[in-house]
């Protein structure tokens, strides 16, 4: 009988010795052990010593030299997918493609989006995500010319902000990428929210040198699971592509209001 009880206690001791110090279950087992013969007490302390040594041995792994630096650089080397998030991308892309497709059907009875439309849809979705999730600027200025000059060093083309009227004011900008290609990003502020403008070379994305402005509404789920819509205008002038993403239609320049 005693042997059975001791066997059960040993089993519980073995499990409890993995518990952290101060755990009530461990304390209860320890209290029981201290009432037992010396052999059990010795076994208990051996288990505790062994647990401490196991913990130390398992954690004793020398990280490779430069590991932290490589991990810090990991986001920069990762494929761009991460910036967008596939689920968000899929939802937004589906909505945008549907909008583009609808327009195409109405205008030319074409049943499927062209390659150009598909590429523009992808860029538009990526730009809207940048607008929603990453609006930081590396150059703070309200002066368009100064921003173009400042971004010039980081771009393989000369940035040139389009005329966006007086309703919104420039906050700054940065160099970034869309679909792996260089982009001049600028952030604007108006009364009802923000606008982002992405400027890129059309040729980088296999797009034509000119395309009339088209406007669409892109829905992006935010971090709370709410879907927010954004007004997006895309156009190409002389080989220079522009995507304007606005929080609100009231922020759109007058020339796009009736699109």
């Amino acid at each position, binding site marked *: 009988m005693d042997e059975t009880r001791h066997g059960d206690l040993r*089993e519980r001791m*073995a*499990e*409890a010795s*993995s*518990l952290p110090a101060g*755990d009530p279950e461990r304390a209860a087992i320890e209290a029981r052990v201290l009432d037992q013969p010396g052999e059990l007490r010795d*076994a208990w302390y*051996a288990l505790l*010593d*062994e*647990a401490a*040594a*196991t*913990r130390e*041995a*398992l*954690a*004793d*792994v020398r*990280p*490779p030299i430069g*590991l*932290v630096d*490589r*991990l*810090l650089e*990991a*986001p920069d080397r*990762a494929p*761009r*997918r*991460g*910036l967008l*998030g596939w689920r968000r991308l899929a939802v937004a892309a589906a909505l945008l493609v549907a909008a583009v497709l609808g327009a195409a059907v109405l205008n030319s009875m074409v049943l499927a989006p062209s390659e150009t439309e598909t590429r523009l849809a992808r860029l538009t979705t990526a730009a809207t995500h*940048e607008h*929603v*999730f*990453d*609006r*930081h*600027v*590396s*150059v*703070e*200025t309200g002066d368009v010319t100064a921003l173009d000059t*400042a971004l*010039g*060093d980081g771009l393989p083309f000369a940035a040139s902000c389009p005329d966006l009227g007086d309703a919104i004011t420039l*906050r*700054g900008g*940065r*160099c*970034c990428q869309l679909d792996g290609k*260089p982009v001049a990003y600028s*952030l604007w502020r108006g009364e009802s929210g923000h606008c982002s403008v992405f400027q890129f070379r059309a040729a980088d994305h296999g797009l034509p040198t000119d395309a009339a402005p088209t406007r669409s509404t892109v829905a992006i789920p*935010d*971090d709370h699971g709410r879907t*927010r819509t954004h007004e997006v205008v895309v156009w190409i002038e002389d080989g220079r592509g522009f995507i304007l993403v606005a*929080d609100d239609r009231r922020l759109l320049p007058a020339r796009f209001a009736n699109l």
Partner: protein
Amino acid sequence: MTAQPMPRPAHPGPSTPDEPGDRPGVSGRPAGGPESRRAIYDRLVRDNAATLFAFARRMVGEHAAAEDVLQETYVEAWRSLDSLRDPRSGRAWLFAILRHRCARWVRKASRRPRATGAVADVAGSLTQPGPDVVHLLGDRERLQRLLDEMDPRFREALLTVFVEGLTPDEAAKALDIPRGTVLSRCHRARTFLRARLRVLDREET
């Protein structure tokens, strides 16, 4: 005004004027704006990389594979950082990703685990605790070989409690198994190590 060197879109620069905490779509992000997003990531690396690497190394066995798994873990963390509601829970969040990555690696490696259940059949004295085990644990390479032999379910429970440092309750939640199973797996994993360390010591000396 200064121009920043080229594009690190996922690597925010210094500032965001009046942004982005005032935007509904951004306010749920960890601690505010894009700059803090990068700062949070950097802190997650600096504070946890060593422990995560130890876990990965012990779990997948190979040094290079452990680093690969860790790289994947941090890239995934960066991509889904927006889903981290509370940066203070970043460590547990990282470990959740790491466990998933390790499990995938182990599955791909198609290792045939040796059931630690067999250890229960090992005759008495080998499984009893003793000061010799503390000494034998000093051979880290031998320890790793034995971990590689161990059933991954027991190895994962042991590492979750002993390396990640979770309480059995926390480990039960993280591993989605009952608390008693966590304790039982730790116990069996330790018994396995104890017995096999002694057997190997006898064989090799």
